[in-house]
């Protein structure tokens, strides 16, 4: 098993080096490469309908890469949860002898709904202002994180979170395949109407994809955290 992983990693790295090398030598002139940025800036409003060009690039121009990133995040979540099992004895033990104090407990509970609301705002307005699925999802997950840190009894609906995570991943793929069989005939083609520039319902499927990304990021992070804390409390009980 370990050997297989090693071979896969080395193979992947070699593939990466070869691709980068070929890219370096095959590019005929630098100016051609440099023109990509200005071209994107010029065509982005018409093509994607998103006011935030960075978001348009992340979700539309390189939507495929974003899908890959979500997959990488899933793999790392898996890795960390395996790590959590390994550190069951020790590392997180001290943390659970203490509940964080009343002010932090009540304070994090009071602020939690509002922080999640800000996260949702950031996700939904990702195509209009700085932000998007990744930072929004992280905000939501970290707010839950603080509440988990301050309570010994909080039960995380693991099943629900796993289902959400899976559905988000499948949803991303489904939207991609809808694009593939649409008239545009390309994976992740932006086939939804562009809407009025600058309003919430604009930029076609970009807000939808960002919502999916946010759900995936948030549920994966919450999953990691709850597994880590479960490992911590297991080690505490073992010590007692």
């Amino acid at each position: 098993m370990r050997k297989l992983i090693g071979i896969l990693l080395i193979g992947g790295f070699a593939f990466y080096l070869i691709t980068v090398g070929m890219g370096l030598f095959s590019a005929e002139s630098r100016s051609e490469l440099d023109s990509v940025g200005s071209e994107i800036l010029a065509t982005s409003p018409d093509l994607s309908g998103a006011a935030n060009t960075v978001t348009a690039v992340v979700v539309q121009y390189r939507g495929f890469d974003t899908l890959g990133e979500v997959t990488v995040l899933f793999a790392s979540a898996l890795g960390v949860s395996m790590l959590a099992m390994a550190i069951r004895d020790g590392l997180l033990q001290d943390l659970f002898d203490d509940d964080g104090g009343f002010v932090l407990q009540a304070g994090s509970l009071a602020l939690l709904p509002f922080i999640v609301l800000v996260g949702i705002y950031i996700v939904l307005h990702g195509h209009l202002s700085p932000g998007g699925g990744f930072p929004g999802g992280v905000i939501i997950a970290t707010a839950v994180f603080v509440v988990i840190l301050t309570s010994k009894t909080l039960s995380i609906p693991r099943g629900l979170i796993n289902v959400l995570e899976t559905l988000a991943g499948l949803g991303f793929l489904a939207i991609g395949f809808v694009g593939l069989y649409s008239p545009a005939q390309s994976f992740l083609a932006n086939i939804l109407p562009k809407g009025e520039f600058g309003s919430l319902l604009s930029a076609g499927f970009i807000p939808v994809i960002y919502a999916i990304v946010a759900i995936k990021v948030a549920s994966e992070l919450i999953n990691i955290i709850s597994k880590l804390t479960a490992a911590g409390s297991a080690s505490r009980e073992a010590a007692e």
Partner: protein
Amino acid sequence: MVILGNILIFIGSLFLALGGLGLIRMPDVYNRLQAGTKATTLGAMSVILGSAFLAPEMLTKAVLLIVFIAMANPVSSSTIGRSAYKGGVPLASRSVRDDWAKEEATE
């Protein structure tokens, strides 16, 4: 409106600077927390409100940010103070009283 905004920004940044000075001058972590929290909370609130007066289209978001700072800043200060105390940081030598230590000694 513009004049009021400028005044608020100036007062706010003055309090921020005083808070920074307090961070340098105070003798221990608890007193520094006192100076830091109060000065930066009011200072930031004042600067944000003043900026909102200069650019009225962001007034609503500014109000929300002010409320958030007013709720979150004391919580984080209390948490730092509590964990410093539980982590064994002593009070400054010129402190006159410690009810909490007395409490834990008698338990």
